[in-house]
């Protein structure tokens, strides 16, 4: 086969460079790193194992495209708040503007700015000794730790020591009718778990209401061990993850799969790579179309 300045890549593996090639020329752009973050601990561990090594040039192109896909408008625009609302004529008065509100209203920070602030503060916070943690005042009313003893708990568990009984799965889906009010912590760390009221009412002895799936043998075939009350309390008390840590990972199984490429021209599988720009096309016909464009953009 003649080589028309293209490289067949259908079955070839891209030569691997060790580690993840982060793109140096755009690394400082906060909105880009929010799209392809490199800082999260979970992410970093996986990136090291990635077989999809790409060149810095390819990474830069992907980041450029992802940044474009994140835009609100194709061009930069500024739509100021209409002037008539800046004076008091016709404006709703919510009373005196407090300093905090003035600061918030004047702020033109973007999400990326706020995220950068958060990350900087997190570093400072994590270096502080734990004793610096401020004591939060605990007003009497909202933090009452226990439900009133008159609470209508209809299915109080008799034996607190017994582990949760295995339950047919259908109760998972049909149990809310029989659910008991759980001991709810209205504030983290200010109350003690109630030993006698299970968080999950799956072991309730009351019959759940009839359900069309009651006789489905599949639904009773597998009986899982439910977590203990203690485990549940711990799970429910866990603080939120940070924005970056909540970002879903690229799981190792997916990283091992071949990346799918598409033709830039028609969208079919991109089996052929343009040597000039790295773009993908499906076959010679689309390559012709692509190369016209490629010549005008990059020169012959």
């Amino acid at each position: 086969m003649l080589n028309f300045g293209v490289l067949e890549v259908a079955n070839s593996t891209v030569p691997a460079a060790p580690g993840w090639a982060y793109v140096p020329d755009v690394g400082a752009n906060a909105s880009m790193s929010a799209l392809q973050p490199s800082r999260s601990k979970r992410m970093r561990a996986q990136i090291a194992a990635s077989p999809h090594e790409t060149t810095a040039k390819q990474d830069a192109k992907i980041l450029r495209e992802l940044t474009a896909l994140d835009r609100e408008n194709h061009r930069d625009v500024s739509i100021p708040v209409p002037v008539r609302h800046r004076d008091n004529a016709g404006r709703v008065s919510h009373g005196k503007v407090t300093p905090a509100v003035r600061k918030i209203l004047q702020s033109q920070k973007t999400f990326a700015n706020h995220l950068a602030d958060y990350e900087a503060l997190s570093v400072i916070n994590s270096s502080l000794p734990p004793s610096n943690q401020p004591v939060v005042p605990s007003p009497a009313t909202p933090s009452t730790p226990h439900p009133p003893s008159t609470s209508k708990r209809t299915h109080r568990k008799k034996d607190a020591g017994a582990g949760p009984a295995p339950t047919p799965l259908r109760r998972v889906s049909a149990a809310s009718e029989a659910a008991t009010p759980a001991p709810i912590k209205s504030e983290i760390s200010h109350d003690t778990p109630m030993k006698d009221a299970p968080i999950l009412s799956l072991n309730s002895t009351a019959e759940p209401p009839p359900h069309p799936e009651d006789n489905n043998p599949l639904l009773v075939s597998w009986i899982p061990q439910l977590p203990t009350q203690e485990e549940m309390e711990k799970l429910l008390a866990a603080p939120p993850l940070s924005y970056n840590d909540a970002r879903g990972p690229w799981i190792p199984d997916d990283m091992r799969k071949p990346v799918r490429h598409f033709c830039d021209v028609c969208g079919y599988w991109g089996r052929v790579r343009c040597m000039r720009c790295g773009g993908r096309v499906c076959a010679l016909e689309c390559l012709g179309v692509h190369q016209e464009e490629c010549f005008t953009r990059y020169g012959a």
Partner: protein
Amino acid sequence: MAPGHRRTKSSGPAPPARTLIIDNGAYTMKAGFSSPASTSAPSVIPNCMARDRERNVYIGSQLSKCKDFGEIVFRRPVEKGYLVNWEAEKEIWDHEFFEGKAPLRCDPRETGLILTEAPNALPQLQTNCDQMVFEEFGFASYLRCPAPVLNAYNDIQAMFKAPPRDPTKPLLPAEIILLIDSGYSHTTITPLIQGRPLQSAIRRLDVGGKLLTNHLTRLLSLRQYDMRNDTYLVNEIKEACCYVSKDFKADMEATWKGPKGDRREIYETAGGIAKDYILPDFHKRTKGEMRDHDPGLAGKLKQLQSGKAPEAAEDILTLRNERFTVPELLFNPSDIGMRQSGIAELVMDSLSALPFGLWPGFLANIIVVGGNANIDGFLWRLQVEIQALAPTECIVRVVRPADPVVSTWNGGAELAKDVDLLSSMSVTKQEYDEYGAAWVARKFGGDPNWKW
């Protein structure tokens, strides 16, 4: 956030008579009132300021007066799913809730507020919300909570075709659901036990409606017309035409034109996949329209355009693989080079943070809300992919509520009908004035290790 137990209120002001629920999304906010006496349907309000090519500026619901969406540009206070710009948001809220002719006018001093946020919000942005709500607007009481949480107050069993709940019994949040919220900015996965999120298992996929629309814009602009200044139109095209493929490879083959000089017969109609979208011209046609692909039409269009003024002809886009490669990004983000797994894998990644004993309950109670839940084929594909990844013993059930866009709001409206439950979860203006912003952040379940 933690729903409090029912308590008897012996002191403090009586709870406000009605509650304004704002599900403050990046694309639209869903807003309306609820009280034990009555709940009306929510208004779906564009959460933006917009400017058309005549330089008219529209605020929020005013956008419905716009007749020409060509080249319209937007400013959105909610960025990446989070309320970032209060200057613009206050302008929109004033217009919708507080001004003399506001469509949902209320006096905040006599109104409670439920305001949603995306999970894993930044503490500073949360505090900005709290300060604006009490110091600027002065709401009588306030609950800020992650949007997925409110869905637990809907009648979940009815969605799964079980007997509906007994309206005479006190409101209890759904015992166990896995809530997937796929909106404009991103897609989040939140396991909820009795309305309480299991924070360590919340996962976010950075694929949402905006990215899908922008991706479709790019494809259409490369292949047909330059639509880059018409993302509003492209969004409508996406909503009308896109679907999640049941068999990606087969659909890809069906839409392939074949090698040069050997056009495949199936190509023109692509087995029904090829569709024409008639673009609005904003004179005779204000709304676009999808039709089955007419192979003769493209040729006719050329003739028309060569002989007559361009506006005499209809502008037609023909969509083939664009219809399914765009929503495919929810399942395969790596198709555009993103280093993230798709939604089904992230559901399993979320579960992997939880005890195995909870998996069957979550897998059997998956609920999808948000605008992307309306994409054809989304639920089917999600169910199939999760089933393939889940332990074989587990039943996987994926459902969406009747209207996935307002589901979160509806849950908030249900919650607002239970005055005692809501006030146990809310903060009053009095409490805010007395204990301050940091206390409010704690009450709403903020990170206890965060230090200002």
